[in-house]
């Protein structure tokens, strides 16, 4: 009886968490692309106006960013101004949760068939590298090591941006504690 009432709450918390994390990542992508040269270098190879989406199948939360040129990303929230060029799709919200709560590395999630790429695979590789770089910025070192294949040695970001992102993260991890079972 109790299980039946608790489960929907867990599901809802997970959905909220994924939605919130998409927002955190979208804003952070834009912020990092304004100051980090490694991210800019990766992004410059994308066409101007390139729209990138990360979403949960079949029609769950999503995150949309645009490469506006010169290595800069613009966060569009959850709606795209036109059809997206590259979409990374989680097969289920449970898989999105694993990745966005940093329990599973993005590359591992790909390897484990947790998500699909719709679009040019070489752009997907590039965006994965950008996301890895992003995760090392917004996560404490210990957690970041779990989330990316390798922790880079050359991180130079204003402490201000880091702490702002980490505040989001604190709110976010609160959900993990609640939802993890």
């Amino acid at each position, binding site marked *: 009886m109790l299980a039946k009432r608790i489960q929907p709450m867990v599901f809802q918390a997970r959905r909220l968490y994924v939605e919130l994390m998409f927002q955190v990542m979208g804003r952070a992508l834009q912020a990092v692309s304004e100051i980090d040269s490694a991210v800019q270098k990766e992004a410059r190879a994308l066409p101007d106006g390139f729209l990138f989406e990360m979403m949960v199948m079949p029609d769950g939360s999503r995150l949309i960013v645009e490469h506006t040129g010169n290595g800069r990303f613009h966060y569009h929230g959850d709606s795209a101004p036109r059809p997206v060029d590259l979409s990374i799709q989680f097969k289920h919200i449970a898989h999105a949760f694993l990745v966005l709560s940093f329990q*599973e590395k993005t590359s591992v999630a790909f390897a*484990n068939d947790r998500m699909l790429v719709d679009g040019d695979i070489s752009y997907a590789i590039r965006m994965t590298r950008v996301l890895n770089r992003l995760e090392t910025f917004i996560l404490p070192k210990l957690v970041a090591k779990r989330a990316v294949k390798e922790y880079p040695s050359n991180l130079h970001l204003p402490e201000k941006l880091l702490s702002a992102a980490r505040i989001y993260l604190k709110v976010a991890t609160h959900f993990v504690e609640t939802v993890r079972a």
Partner: protein
Amino acid sequence: MTNQYYEFFCPVKVIAGKAALEHIPYELTGLAAKRPMIVTDKGVRAAGLLDPVVAACEESGLEIISIYDDVPPDSSTDVVRDIAGIYRSEKCDSIIAVGGGSAIDTAKAVNILVSEGGDDIAAYSGAGVIKHPLKPFLVVPTTAGTGSEVTSVAVITDTTKSVKLPFTSSFLLPNAAVIDPRMTLTLPPHITAATAMDAMTHATEAFTCMAKNPLSDAYATAAVKKISTSLLQVMDNPKDSDGRLELAQASTMAGIAFSNSMVGLVHALGHATGAICHLPHGLCMSLYLPYVLEYNLESIRAPLGELLLYLEGPDVYSATPASRRAEASISALRKMRDELHKRCKLPRTLKETGSVEEHQLDTIADMAMDDGAMMFNPKEVSLDDARAVLKRAWA
């Protein structure tokens, strides 16, 4: 509990061994196919490899309606459209691909067009576009390396836009792969060596890259064992049909392994080198394999060490301390490359190929960074890393 999760899929019936070709009529009849078309290339026809296939069918009263034997080494959208046109005008109802990677990829693409309709194969490019089973399709590989008979991928060049179009769908998989030792008996030594090293690389990368899983591991280790045991024997005695069958089976097994667990940096560098310097794929694999394993070493020590058992056998494995096994596996592969160089001059370094110039290395590295295989390499590869591996492979 770990987060480990995996998927494994291979619905291809494998028909392998002596007189395997003679099973083709039965298999096609079982799929209600009566009017097969053969898709192949000039080399296969010139080597007389079509004769036993056609004879096997005709003896059972199954007429081959049409033979297209002009698939180029780098197949294009035009070729695919032409073949589909012939298939339709001859009212064929099934396809038999006889050949290596290019003939097989072409036949997969033709099957998309004749099953889904239309003339524009580019419209079906991408992942998951095809939603229905295609026409009955058999593959008879004539090289032992690519594993294309068990992969759900085809790559076709769009000549007008000069881009390579990828097609991915489990419906591209053939109904059956027919592995008959007669088909690889006449492969020249350097092709035997290069294609076997391609299969060896498929197995090694499948076993050491990120998407490895228990089922693909079983196929990968069995493939490594077969290649280590049989390759040099076949090089010394090309007419050894038992050895040829071992290599052909190993190639299929390695194909099953890597199509379920993907490949890594060796393939990323190899694809780029193939595109820029026009070197055969198998040769590129042989060139890079040991250098990439050295680069990945600390991330793959355990699985690479385990491979020693299949590369060198139980005696060497048990005589080697556990902490040295990974290095010993790399030495075993280097030794194999030296032996192949002795027997057929298969190059071991980029310089030895005579087709690569040192100033091209940076272009190769740039291109490799965008390759899909990068995703599954166990170590995160930076541009500088890729350049460093290429430098080591240079001479």
